[in-house]
């Protein structure tokens, strides 16, 4: 009971409340601007929040996370351009609805669905996170190492088309994490006489470079002035009672889908939105309307995408494995504040968990109000010329990175990471596993070495939880390979059916 009171009390601090509002505003704005993702915004903001106390800093970052999940729906519906990847599926029915003169209705339904999705998933966080964390508290070195391996393999399998590239990216992240002092003996590794490298590469700078600067560089590289104009006629805003009833089923199914997908390490709103939309289409009485402006399709996509937030938060806070890329960045900030997300956080700072849940719920409800009251003003944002956006983002990335150490060395690391991130993006290497490897590398190494020294290699497979996690990791890696092989076989047989002459010859 004390933890609940203390957790809520922390938010009564005016600084924390102001930070929450500022984060919400920033999140909604960046979500509404295509090209700036939630991950990029949180990465950027993390540089500025390190000087704040953890509650205020978390208020900024979590509010950006929530706000971006509302703001990104606006360009998806009005210009057919997802504000962030999490709203890709919103475009399927949102834009057709806008073209039919129902943009206002689409925006309101999208806001309600996103709110509902996040709140349902937050109930799951409140109920499930602590039992999961209590269970994980019993983990020894073998289980902790296997957990990191599991998290990494899931991220690899969902974030890359090529398993080999994803794995190489993960190995690269783990290798970069070895720069600096050895976690057990303190010996120097790969520092080459440079004092700054003694404490390893500054991971906030690497994260801002890989996610923020690389994305910006890619936009510069591929920019084509478009002629898409936002839909100006918004039509009616509020759904009818019959429409609400029609949306209940896709909402319920997509809430569950989104929460489960969000709980999987690295799987985020983009995947959940697509899965939720597809599932709702299969269950609908009018599947032919999906993609043509279906309110059910829009509800399903946005509910599932929104519901990933609570699921993702559960995995991150209970196990210390990031549920999505935003959480990976947040994990970095929390480590700098001296907080280690994972089972021990629930034992050491139960009030902080309450604060986190409260921030998420308040930010969601405020976003709902902002969304319903002043959606029209947001539309103007879409006219912002890119030269203001790009130069502003680049300067803020630079300042945000600099503010972490007050040294231009970190800015150089950020710039180099940006160039490396661009090369990775253009060559199909995912950045997610690199960041995860960098963040969890010391944890994996220290626990594996401890497990091997104390109990020998057999402990990894004789401990049931460790063995199960390693088996799941193996399944996670093999499943995409099998699915791809099956797809290739199907394509071949379909081609053979189309061209029977070739089969006979």
């Amino acid at each position, binding site marked *: 009971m004390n933890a609940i009171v203390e957790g809520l009390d922390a938010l009564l601090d005016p600084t924390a409340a102001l930070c929450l509002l500022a984060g919400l505003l920033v999140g909604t704005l960046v979500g509404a601007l295509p090209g700036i993702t939630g991950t990029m915004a949180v990465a950027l903001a993390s540089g500025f929040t390190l000087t704040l106390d953890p509650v205020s800093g978390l208020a900024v970052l979590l509010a950006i996370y929530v706000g971006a999940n509302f703001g990104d729906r606006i360009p998806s519906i009005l210009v057919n351009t997802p504000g962030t990847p999490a709203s890709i599926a919103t475009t399927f029915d949102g834009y057709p609805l806008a073209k039919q003169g129902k943009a206002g209705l689409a925006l309101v339904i999208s806001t309600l669905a996103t709110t509902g999705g996040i709140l349902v998933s937050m109930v799951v966080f409140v109920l499930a996170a602590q039992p999961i964390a209590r269970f994980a508290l019993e983990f020894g070195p073998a289980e902790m190492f296997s957990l990191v391996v599991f998290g990494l393999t899931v991220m690899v399998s969902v974030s890359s088309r090529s398993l080999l*590239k994803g794995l190489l990216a993960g190995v*690269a992240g783990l290798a970069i994490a070895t720069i600096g002092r050895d976690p057990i003996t303190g010996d120097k590794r790969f520092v080459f006489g440079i004092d700054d490298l003694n404490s390893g590469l500054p991971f906030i700078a690497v994260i801002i470079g890989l996610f923020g600067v690389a994305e910006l560089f890619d936009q510069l*590289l*591929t920019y084509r002035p478009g002629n898409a104009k936002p839909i100006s006629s918004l039509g009616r805003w509020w759904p009818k009672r019959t429409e609400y009833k029609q949306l209940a089923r896709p909402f319920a199914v997509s809430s569950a889908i989104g929460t489960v997908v969000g709980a999987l390490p690295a799987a985020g709103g983009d995947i959940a939105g697509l899965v939720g939309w597809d599932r709702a289409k299969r269950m609908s009485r009018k599947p032919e309307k999906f993609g043509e402006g279906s309110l059910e399709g829009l509800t399903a996509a946005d509910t599932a995408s929104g519901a990933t937030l609570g699921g993702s938060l559960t995995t991150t806070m209970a196990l210390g494995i990031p549920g999505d890329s935003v959480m990976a960045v947040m994990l970095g900030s929390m480590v700098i504040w001296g907080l280690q997300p994972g089972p021990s956080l629930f034992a050491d700072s139960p009030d902080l968990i309450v604060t986190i849940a409260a921030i998420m719920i308040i930010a969601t409800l405020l976003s709902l109000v902002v969304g319903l009251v002043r959606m029209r003003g947001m539309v103007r944002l879409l006219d912002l010329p*890119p*030269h203001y956006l790009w130069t*502003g983002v*680049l300067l803020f990335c630079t300042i945000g990175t600099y503010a972490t150490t007050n040294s231009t060395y970190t800015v150089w690391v950020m710039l180099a990471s940006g160039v490396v991130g661009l090369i990775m993006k253009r060559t*199909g290497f995912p950045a997610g596993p690199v960041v995860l490897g960098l963040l969890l590398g010391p944890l994996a190494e220290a626990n594996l070495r401890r497990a*091997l020294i104390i109990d020998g290699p057999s402990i990894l497979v004789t401990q049931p939880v460790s063995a199960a996690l390693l088996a799941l990791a193996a399944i996670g890696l093999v499943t995409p390979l099998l699915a791809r092989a099956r797809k290739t076989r199907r394509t071949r047989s379909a081609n053979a059916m189309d061209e029977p002459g070739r089969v006979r010859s």
Partner: protein
Amino acid sequence: MGTTAHPQAVAQDPPESSAARPSRSLEICCAATALAATGALVLLAKGIEVRRETDGIDPRWWPELLGMIGLALAAAYLVVAVVRPPFPRTDLEAATRRGWPLLVATVSLTAAFVALWPLVGFAVAAPVFLSAMTYLVGGRGWRTLLIYPAVVTALVYLPFHTLLKVPL
């Protein structure tokens, strides 16, 4: 601050987007780089100096293990890159004609800004950098090139330097 993008910049590339094309030579180049990098990791790991030799699971062991795993993965990637069709790149936009020079100029300008910053101070380096960057990416007009950089610099400088005590 309402000026529009430079008209020449708008006219150079077609508005419609196109996906990047798959490339076998790019894949082979990536695989070779990965092979070289992981090989270097193994060699560097072997060269780590430890204060107390244990001949077992010491500070060299983990990076060496990662290097070996990476080497095996890179070798497999090289084989895949040579014998199989290159990976599709449909999720990537193709670079535009002016994209590469723009990118090189942006990286160079940012590097120059970071190098100049400790020498002349943020308050001088930032507006010059912003003005040059804005011009580079298509911004024109005195308000865009003079007022915008000055306002943004002030908006950054005042809260960070004055309130948060970040020594810019």
